[in-house]
């Protein structure tokens, strides 16, 4: 007897959802074209990779002209580095809609391959960029999701309000006590891994309160989570980084971009040292990005927005798979 043919050839999203998704993508593009922002495409395969210890790059092997012994190439986790090289080369404001890849991430709100909208605004700081993010998201969700007045919340205030702890000064023991008091039984967290505890409380206690019926911007992240953001000149304990939440879902991450090549190199080195401590593979830092920063990155702010999540919220879906043609299980 022939085995029954698999039924998972079918899309994970209904076709009318894919039609609506296409319209939302058109709306995103039109927003930037109307504002004179240039659409660009940068390589998904790169000789360099992110050094961020919390991001895991997928890699592949290129064999062919110029690489007869084979060359490791990494699928980008975001198009940030080449887009900054374009900015340094004088591109002016740019945006990109592309697939990015992150190993190890799958679930209701994660797919190892997903669509990112990333854009950069020369002469903007993170506050001006937050305003534009709000305009874009409000425009896209118009007549779909009613939104109240936007909420602006510092990372510190969010923790004080929902956990009672100051995230910039709390001790390891305080983190653990707070988690226990809120009924969170967490295994395997190092008492000194402050950012691990912050992420635990953020995901379990704070995120569910963010963006309920309105956009919530969380900003002024701890300097240890600056990633590629500048530190605040008047308060170097925090970085000029923000995140956007809607309905408890993290939608976008943005920075007032770090332009200092020396500081960027130090952060790469610190990331690589941390990767080593965690037993993660070494990844090649982007020397071409450093050279571009050395040449001069115009003062700018940039942000990356998860398009699948935005479409999911726009259509009232509960899982990313409901708005993707084929989620990873069917890829």
């Amino acid at each position, binding site marked *: 007897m022939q085995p029954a043919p698999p039924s998972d050839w079918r899309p994970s999203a209904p076709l009318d959802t894919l039609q609506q998704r296409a319209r939302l993508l058109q709306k995103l593009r039109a927003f930037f074209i109307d504002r004179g922002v240039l659409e660009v495409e940068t390589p998904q395969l790169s000789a360099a990779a992110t050094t*961020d210890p*919390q*991001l895991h790059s997928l890699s592949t092997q290129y064999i062919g002209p110029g690489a007869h012994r084979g060359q490791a190439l990494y699928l980008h986790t975001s198009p940030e580095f080449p887009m900054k090289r374009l900015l340094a080369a004088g591109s002016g404001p740019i945006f990109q809609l592309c697939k990015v890849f992150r190993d*190890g*991430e*799958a*679930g*209701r*709100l*994660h797919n190892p391959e997903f669509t990112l909208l990333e854009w950069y605004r020369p002469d903007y700081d993170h506050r001006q960029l937050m305003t534009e993010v709000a305009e874009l998201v409000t425009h896209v969700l118009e007549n779909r999701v009613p939104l109240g007045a936007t909420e602006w919340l510092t990372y510190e205030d969010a923790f004080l309000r929902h956990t009672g702890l100051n995230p910039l000064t709390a001790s390891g023991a305080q983190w653990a006590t707070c988690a226990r008091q809120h*009924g*969170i*039984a*967490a*295994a*395997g*967290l190092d008492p000194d*891994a402050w*950012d*691990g505890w*912050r*992420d*635990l409380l*953020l*995901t*379990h206690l704070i995120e569910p309160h963010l963006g309920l019926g309105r956009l919530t911007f969380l900003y002024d992240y701890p300097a240890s*989570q600056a*990633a590629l953001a500048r530190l605040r000149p008047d308060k170097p304990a925090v970085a000029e980084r923000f*995140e956007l939440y809607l309905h408890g879902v*993290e939608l976008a*991450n943005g920075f007032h971009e770090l332009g200092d090549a020396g500081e960027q190199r130090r952060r790469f080195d610190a990331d690589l040292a941390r990767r080593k401590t965690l037993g993660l593979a070494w990844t090649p830092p982007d020397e071409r990005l450093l050279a571009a920063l050395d040449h001069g990155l115009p003062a700018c702010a940039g942000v990356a927005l*998860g398009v699948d999540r935005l479409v999911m919220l726009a259509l009232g879906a509960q899982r990313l798979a409901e708005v993707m043609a084929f989620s990873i299980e069917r890829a």
Partner: protein
Amino acid sequence: MATYSTNEFKPGLKVMLDNDPGSIIENEFVKPGKGQAFNRVKIRNLRSGRVIERTFKSGDSIEAADVIDTEMQYLYSDGEFFHFMNPESFEQIPADAKAVGDTVKWLKEEVTCLVTLWNGVPLSVEPQHTVALKIVETDPGVRGDTSGGGGKPAKLETGAVVRVPLFIQNGEVIKVNTRTGEYVSRAKE
């Protein structure tokens, strides 16, 4: 010691937690874009039945529980233990009253049950969804009444009491839904 990584978590996976065997009910992957990934898990403790929540750092591993569900035939009770037999290997295993629990009221010799074994020892015993049992005590039936309305209590051969329609007679064999404890139909002999 067998272990499972968080990447293997899925509903139904049997794991050890606080020295007790558990079964994963729900597994959610959460991760701030630039932060630590976690698996938020709901696990049923297979000894107490309680559901607990636990969060693991993604990539960590936990001990696997040697828990298997196996169909076994109920043989007899010796007053202390209930004895079951694996119909293929003929191996016999005693289950205590705690493992049998409420299932005792559906246990009839030679019926097949789903026995959950932890390290070879019965943790729980589930009856089949419907069982056929003989009525040993009920009020005389009203022969003409097949409406099924009303009903009356009937004691079954295993001691369970269920409500049956008025037309059902003492000595008849009926099918009962073991999940709800409700009468389903007359059993066809």
